[in-house]
């Protein structure tokens, strides 16, 4: 190429004093950024191939490698930054839509970081979670309007089927195809051990994983890949995916090269064919159609499983959620604009949707105003980064949270945001057998379990400090939150007071 418009953003820096030429970097880089040069007797690197996934850095036994941001720069310009300029160059080469992965990385406000939590002092005691029971178990699902009593006067259980979680977290939908068999196995086994749920995403359920069905949420999305009667009945709940926070209004596209053997069989589409999920469900053009699908799925599962409707957080999310609450759905999942994806058009990912904090607060308030909050449970997702985010989400009104990015981080992801390339060096977002092999589920599931257990401990510590011993008493308890540096409008949407008030 005579003209190389793009200088790599990141450079591989090798400390030759430390490098022992073990060549693990070379062997482990699927992008072939490293190579041993016989003539010079040393390792060389091509930074233009590097995606900054840290696989080589993490495996280098002598810590001889690091990836640094390049000092190379364009002339300063507050309007045209280097990323925008490079994107123009890329599009001039390709003539195509820019693709990205994982969640929106841009510098929009992060409301979780502007919310602070409360603790007990003097007038009520904090509770020590090591000495007293501290309950983080939650139950998700619809509630009937009234109680019923039997002939003996005792209340009869008239609750529709529900999901019971040992802690208010579930693993977000990630399809087999977008992520690997080993990643799915790790999530399924971790969910089972933890007593929570993972979500198949729109890729069907591999036959090996039917045995984790009691801890599985099976998803039905617009492409209907892998959906059949046995599949619907294999899980504990069925989720209708209407939208995804990373790409609201957009369907999905799993390229044919990822539709290999098992993925093809599980999705029930030919090997090598692109799996294209339409933007809308073509049987749902309005809310009354959604109601029909909800009840179709309930019929198909003999009313034994709760139905979740997942939507992306968009501008009128409160009204949409209100409609869904009346559609027969048992649980509404809202996915914020920071939510992850295996591939999305960059412009969509970075510019569409709204923050989960605002969406969640608006939905919870609207459902209460309309007196239908008790009919449904709310699950929030789209960048719950820590136990503190999770606690804040519950205080804003969530019954539980979907954990996606944090879960793949547990599996080794370093957020290089190159999932769309299909060459994930960590064995997560790939179908290449020698890469998939790099994620040993025995290790992966243990790391997921550790992460969730750690969060659960932290949640209990935070709750204890507040004097709350059941997570249910934290749900929607917005007095436990105070805003810092937020304006009146933001505070009013979040329904919280400013710190000091």
């Amino acid at each position, binding site marked *: 190429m005579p003209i190389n418009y793009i200088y790599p953003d990141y450079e591989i820096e090798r400390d030759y004093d430390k490098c022992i030429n073990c060549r693990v970097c070379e062997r482990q880089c699927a992008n072939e950024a490293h190579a041993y040069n016989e003539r010079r007797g040393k390792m060389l690197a091509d930074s233009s191939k590097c995606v900054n996934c840290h696989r080589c850095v993490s495996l280098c036994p002598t810590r001889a490698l690091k990836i640094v941001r390049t000092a190379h720069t364009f002339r300063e310009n507050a309007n045209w930054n280097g990323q925008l300029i490079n994107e123009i160059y890329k599009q001039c080469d390709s003539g195509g839509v820019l693709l990205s992965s994982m969640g929106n990385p841009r510098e929009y406000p992060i409301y979780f970081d502007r919310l602070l939590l409360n603790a*007990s002092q003097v*007038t*009520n*005691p904090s*509770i020590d979670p090591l000495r*007293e*029971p501290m*309950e983080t*178990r*939650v*139950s998700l*699902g619809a*509630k*009937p309007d*009234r*109680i019923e*009593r039997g002939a003996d006067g*005792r*209340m009869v*259980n008239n*609750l529709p089927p*529900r999901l019971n979680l040992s802690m208010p977290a579930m693993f977000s939908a990630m399809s087999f195809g977008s992520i690997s068999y080993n990643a799915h196995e790790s999530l399924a086994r971790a969910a089972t051990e933890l007593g929570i749920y993972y979500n198949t995403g729109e890729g069907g359920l591999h036959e090996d994983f039917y045995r984790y069905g009691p801890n599985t949420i099976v998803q039905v999305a617009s492409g209907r890949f892998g959906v059949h009667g046995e599949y619907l009945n294999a899980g504990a709940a069925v989720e209708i995916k209407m939208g995804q926070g990373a790409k609201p209004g957009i369907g999905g596209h799993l390229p044919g090269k990822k539709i290999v053997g098992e993925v093809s069989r599980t999705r029930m589409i030919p090997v090598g064919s692109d799996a294209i999920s339409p933007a809308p469900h073509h049987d749902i053009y309005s809310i009354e159609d959604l109601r029909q699908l909800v009840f179709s799925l309930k019929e198909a599962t003999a009313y034994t499983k709760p139905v979740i409707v997942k939507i992306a957080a968009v501008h009128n999310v409160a009204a949409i959620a209100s409609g869904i609450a009346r559609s027969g759905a048992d649980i509404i999942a809202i996915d914020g604009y920071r939510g992850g994806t295996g591939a999305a058009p960059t412009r969509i990912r970075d510019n569409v949707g709204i923050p989960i904090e605002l969406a969640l607060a608006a939905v919870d308030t609207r459902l*209460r*105003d*309309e*007196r239908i*909050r*008790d009919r449904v449970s709310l699950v929030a997702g789209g960048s719950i980064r820590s136990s503190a985010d999770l606690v804040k989400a519950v205080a804003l009104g969530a019954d539980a949270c979907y954990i996606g990015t944090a879960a793949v981080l547990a599996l080794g992801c370093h957020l290089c945001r190159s999932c769309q390339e299909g060459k994930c060096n960590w064995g997560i977002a790939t179908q290449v057998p020698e890469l998939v092999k790099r994620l040993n589920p025995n290790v992966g599931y243990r790391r997921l379990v550790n992460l969730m257990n750690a969060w659960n401990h932290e949640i209990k510590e935070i709750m204890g400090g*507040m*004097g*709350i*011993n*059941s997570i*249910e*008493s*934290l*749900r*929607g*308890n*917005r*007095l*436990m939150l105070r805003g810092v540096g937020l304006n009146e409008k933001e505070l009013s949407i979040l329904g919280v007071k400013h710190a000091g008030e």
Partner: protein
Amino acid sequence: MLRTREDILEGRLRIPSGCAISGIFSKSGKPIGGERIIKSIEVMHDRSNGLGGGFACYGIYPQFPDHYAIHVFHDNLASKRECEDFLLKNFDIASMSEIPTRLTSGVTDAPLIWRYFAEPLRHRVVEDFCDEDEFVARRVTHINARIDGSYVFSSGKNMGVFKAIGFPEDVGRFYRLEDYEGYCMIAHGRYPTNTPGWWGGAHPFALLSSSVVHNGEISSYDANRRSIEPYGYSCSLQTDTEVIAYIYDYLTRRVGLSQREFADVVAAPFWSAIADMPKDRREYYEYIRAMFSNFLITGPFSIIVGFEGGMMALNDRLKLRSMVCAERGDTLYAASEECAIRVVEPELDRVWAPAGGEPVIATLGRPGGER
């Protein structure tokens, strides 16, 4: 002089309080004199700070047993007129009078305190498509939310709440409580951390015939508040007691739970305890906790709930607040401290500290009660 609504502090912000509570209940319906409950609460003087005291007395209006006894604080004659016009549009008033009081040094800034024995107008109830209780509850809510300067603080049948800013024993003497007798007497002394500045903020908090006195600060407050408000309640005072009273009213009167079931909702056993229960108990609690999870109350509380023909004492499930119960003959006592019981009844058949979440319920005509 009572401050105007715009100036009140109570309701503008949340004021945590420490407190003393005491209740005496005669299962046989034998009258208990008002001076006894004053004596009981007075001994716990140090648990209050002079910023609120009050009483709920049951069985005190045998002359009007079927009328709603509506007690109102009026700021001034204008609000009194507006409120009375509203009452007359909705009720047949059998009797109206100022509630008798005496000058008491510890009680100042008294508003106009009036009492109306009222019967809902039949045709108005029909227009509302509801029963009489719901009709009265709606009218009380209307006055408290819409009529500036009037506040209904008692609205039950054959019962009355008396409350003010001051130490509880002074409040009792102010209201001449010795002139009343009834089968159940409940008292409250308040230790707010701020100046409430308004009589309506004192306890008990009552709606229809149920009343709640409460000691503690519930950490689930806002979760409970935001869960009960959609059912038509407005937690304008921002007090724990108010939200507990509304939850009690909602669950017992509107959902149809028993007092025992109410206790199982608000002070539900821990999941770890439920797991060890026999199947039917386990299923019962699993249902209760799933169905009414929004009304679980956490954080420290001890409450005494008065209701028509009964009284219930209840602690939070960890028992983070003191509460002692005792029995002598057919009389049940419950108080923050044992001294408050001993001072009125030195000889007791039984004294015990109920476990957290374990309600002590006594009702008329059921000697031995339910436990």
